[in-house]
């Protein structure tokens, strides 16, 4: 059912929102997990594996147990095998007899102070019998490679049966096929084959993971943490620990940035066992180093992409293979295929194609979800190759995209038809924006296009109207930075035609009886939680109108509320939507660069993002998402890379893992396309993941436009650009990058 209402709001949506949690965050009043202090609280610390792959010989905690302030030391042998995950529960809370990556938890300590806990953890002696370690998917997929998980049948697979895979070191695989691919290739005039790689990235959120776990006298386990999907986490926690679901309560707290990674909780599990053992609250706050190896980094990838085209640039067939380095555990991935992200969408009409995506176990930091998971890897490859094709065929890259853009009909590689394809209008808008003047030597322009589904899920919330006219929203949604409370406030205020200051939002724990929320992720919250807010507001509106029929025409809101809500009115509503059957959103990025041919240095001069965003609900938050998504894409493109050498993260600090700084961001124009409503409240679409993936290929294409050099590997470091320039000049035969 459409959420576009005839009354929809007009000018009320145009003004800038005042962020509902802004004052609390600016003043420091907002409570994050690390801010929680409880009476009698202990601190946790963990002994972690210094080796990438080993049998645990023995764990000697005698000295640690005797140290001052220590209240409990737990090893895997003490608690037994309790594995957690988002879909596949393959990661132990504490390793039992084997470690599979550097940084894996082998013992947990609870002590009176953080320092005591850390000192005790350092005093735990662990004997490791090292095993051959596998660092790259290619090694792990060799026929005789050691099997990293020998008893997968013991792992819980949530919500179904784990699909079988052709190799025991495969975490999961997804194969999409459409049409007769080989026949289609046979009809191609030209076939292009290229390989592209992307490294691991960390989300770079401000707040490292933190948690406080305690068990009350009724046996209820309370968890303050950093998980953005409270109900999914609650269920997973119950399965992992054996605590009955109704005894698990995820407490409200602000989350200091997420970008996808905080769908996986890690430390909450050992902290629970420590709390159970000590009968006291247990707290843990990660350092950034620890967070970087927490197991939710973006997967490194290698994409082999074969594309057949006609001589006038029409794509006839695509065959893509993406291998993801999944790391030691698949626990961080929520999708049933156990590859990062849902089936990627392409904004092009592709008659026949095959896409195989494989995630592979290795003895490295586990991969997880991060903003536009899977897309950043695939779109970099696809949009880079489109420009390679355009240049080879002598067709303008813009024109090539126009020729292939999805028109009124067409379907994805998985055969799902497109609804409301927006590629053409995004490209048309871009054509109008295209600068006419020619570029100076050494300068180039690049474009890339992306499309992404709008996330679904089921959300509930309730509204309480009191006689004073104030409306209180109750929700279990987690605010991880996207501004969901402001979205909800705005939706309610607009639908009821009241001032937003009359609407407050109360966050409830995730527990039995509280409104269910699917959590932030897949850019779903405006759509789904906002959708529930609209449903509830519509219901409340009807109730007020039936009690006070003169509102809103001849009676003001306060008077109507006094009549309708003498005793208070509570309404509850839910909204549910699935992912695929909604119009997807298209985003586009165009960038101008300058390349220094002697050093390979790339300077960004100008960028524009065009996005078909549907109705804008919160204008300020939308600009934040577009700018933030661009900057995150810029980091992926230019500076960020978690360097993992022999399983060890070499740059596990924000001094050496370079997020873009303010000065690194070029002038950015954002051009929204409105007027094509989506499935969200008042016709909203999504914004969180729309432009990130298009940034890196746009820059790579701009570099190629500037100097003819094509870089197939992210990040587009100056050294790689220089090597590519020299390959073009024929000066350089080996790739030193």
């Amino acid at each position, binding site marked *: 059912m459409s959420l576009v209402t005839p009354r929809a709001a007009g000018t009320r949506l145009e003004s800038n929102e005042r962020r509902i949690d802004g004052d609390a965050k600016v003043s420091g009043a907002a409570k994050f997990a690390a801010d929680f202090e409880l009476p009698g609280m202990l601190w946790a610390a963990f002994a972690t594996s210094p080796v990438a792959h080993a049998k645990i010989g023995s764990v000697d905690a005698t000295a640690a147990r005797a140290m001052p302030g220590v209240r409990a030391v737990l090893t895997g042998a003490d608690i037994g095998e309790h594995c957690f995950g988002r879909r596949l529960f393959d990661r132990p809370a504490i390793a039992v007899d084997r470690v599979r990556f550097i940084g894996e938890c082998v013992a947990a300590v609870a002590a009176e*102070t*953080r*320092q005591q806990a*850390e*000192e005790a953890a*350092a005093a735990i002696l662990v004997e490791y019998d090292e095993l051959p370690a596998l660092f790259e998917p290619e090694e792990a997929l060799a026929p005789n490679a050691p099997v990293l998980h020998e008893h997968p049948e013991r792992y819980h697979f949530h919500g179904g049966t784990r699909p079988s895979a052709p190799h025991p070191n495969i975490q999961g695989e997804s194969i999409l096929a459409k049409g007769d691919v080989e026949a289609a290739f046979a009809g191609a005039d030209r076939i292009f084959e290229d390989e592209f790689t992307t490294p691991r990235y960390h989300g770079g959120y401000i707040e490292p993971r933190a948690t406080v776990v305690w068990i009350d006298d009724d046996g209820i386990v309370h968890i303050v943490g950093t998980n953005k999907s409270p109900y999914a986490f609650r269920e997973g926690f119950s399965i992992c620990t054996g605590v009955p679901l109704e005894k698990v309560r995820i407490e409200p707290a602000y989350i200091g940035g997420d970008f996808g990674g905080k769908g996986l909780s890690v430390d909450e599990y050992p902290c629970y066992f420590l709390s159970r053992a000590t009968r006291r609250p247990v707290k843990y706050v990660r*350092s950034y*180093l620890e967070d970087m190896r927490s197991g939710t980094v973006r997967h490194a990838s290698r994409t082999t992409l074969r594309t057949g085209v006609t001589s006038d640039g029409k794509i006839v067939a695509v065959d893509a293979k993406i291998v993801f380095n999944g790391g030691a555990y698949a626990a961080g991935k929520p999708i049933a295929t156990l590859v990062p992200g849902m089936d990627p969408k392409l904004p092009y009409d592709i008659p026949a194609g095959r896409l195989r995506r494989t995630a592979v176990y290795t003895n490295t930091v586990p991969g997880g979800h991060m903003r536009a998971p899977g897309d950043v890897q695939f779109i970099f490859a696809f949009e880079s190759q489109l420009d390679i094709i355009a240049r080879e065929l002598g067709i303008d890259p813009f024109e090539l995209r126009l020729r292939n853009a999805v028109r009124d009909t067409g379907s994805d590689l998985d055969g799902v038809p497109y609804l409301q394809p927006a590629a053409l209008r995004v490209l048309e808008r871009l054509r109008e924006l295209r600068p006419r003047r020619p570029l100076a030597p050494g300068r180039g322009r690049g474009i890339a296009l992306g499309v992404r589904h709008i996330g679904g899920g089921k959300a509930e919330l309730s509204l309480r109207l009191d006689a004073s006219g104030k409306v209180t929203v109750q929700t279990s949604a987690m605010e991880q930075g996207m501004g969901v409370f402001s979205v909800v406030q705005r939706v309610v205020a607009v639908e009821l035609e009241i001032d937003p200051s009359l609407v407050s939002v109360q966050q409830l724990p995730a527990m039995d009886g509280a409104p269910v929320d699917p959590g932030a992720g897949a850019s779903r919250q405006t759509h789904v939680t906002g959708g529930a807010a609209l449903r509830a507001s519509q219901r409340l509106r009807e109730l007020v109108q039936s009690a006070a029929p003169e509102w809103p025409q001849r009676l003001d809101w306060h008077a109507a509320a006094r009549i309708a809500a003498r005793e208070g009115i509570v309404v509850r509503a839910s909204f549910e939507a699935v992912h695929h059957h909604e119009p997807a959103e298209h985003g586009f990025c165009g960038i101008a660069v300058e390349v220094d041919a*002697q*050093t*390979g*240095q*790339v300077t960004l001069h100008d960028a524009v993002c065009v996005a078909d965003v549907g109705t804008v609900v919160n204008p300020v938050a939308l600009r934040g998402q577009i700018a933030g998504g661009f900057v995150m894409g810029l980091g992926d493109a*230019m*500076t960020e*890379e978690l*360097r993992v050498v022999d399983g060890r993260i*070499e*740059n596990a*600090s924000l*001094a*050496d893992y*370079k*997020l*873009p*700084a303010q*000065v*690194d961001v070029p002038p950015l124009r954002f051009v929204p396309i409105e007027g094509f409503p989506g499935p969200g409240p008042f016709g909203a679409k999504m914004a969180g993941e729309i432009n990130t993936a298009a940034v890196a290929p746009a820059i790579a294409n701009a570099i190629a436009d500037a100097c003819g050099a094509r870089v197939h590997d992210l*990040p587009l*470091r*100056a*050294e790689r650009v*220089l090597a590519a320039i020299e390959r073009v000049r024929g000066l350089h035969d080996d790739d*030193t*990058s």
Partner: protein
Amino acid sequence: MRAFHYHYHEPATLVEALSLLEGHGDSAHVLAGGTALVPLMRSGLVLPEHVVALERIPNLREIGIAPDGGLSIGALVTHREIERSALVERFFAPLAETFGRVATIRIRNQGTIGGNVIHADPASDPPPMLLALDAQAVIASGTTMRTAPLAEFFRGFFETALGRAEIVTTIHIPPPMRGARGVYLKFLPGSEDDFATVSVATVVHLEDGVCRHARIGLGAVGSTPLRARRAEAVLLGSALSPKTIAEAAAIAKSEVEPYDDARGSANYKRRMVEVFVRRALERLRAA
């Protein structure tokens, strides 16, 4: 490990600070601005039992002209103060500009010149320019003061000639020749907020178009900040012709031993030394 115990001392005089260092030996570490020491402590790379903060010691925060006409910069003068000092600007503007390239404004407001030289980070910005200006460290110990040219002070990877119970009180920079030109180039191909991939400071003096004095200081290309002495020698007596500049740049490239790291391979950094020495000298010739 992030949390541990240490004793924090705030001596009021230099004598008191030196006697604390004397008394605690290797277990003591001097704290100036803390931009180097605190991250090292947080990461557990340096775990001093005694931290001797110099903050309360008078006279370490001054910039002045020395009797020889050179510049004296107290050890606790911050990067930002040097960057903005009118005195430094008049003395040798490229020196002020170099300090303006250190990290970010937040670090520049906190980090000090004394802390910077004793940290001896090969990738830091001030040392190449200080080397190019023949700067000296003035070092106090229990009973005496000595001076050490920075070219000898930087001994190895994060290692200096500073003795156990010694404190750098001042950086002294001899007066450059009238009309000397200088430039600092910091190559930042990734983020602007980063250490240099390579950095080059050059100071030259030309008389009637002939180079009579040349210094090339290099950063991020070896275990210490260093001078490209053979390249400097090529410039002397020349007219800084494009050919001479190219020759000096090629020689400078052979004088460095950079490491592979996230900012580039050793081979790339070596090549960038050639590019940036050439660019620096070209800039000075054109100046």
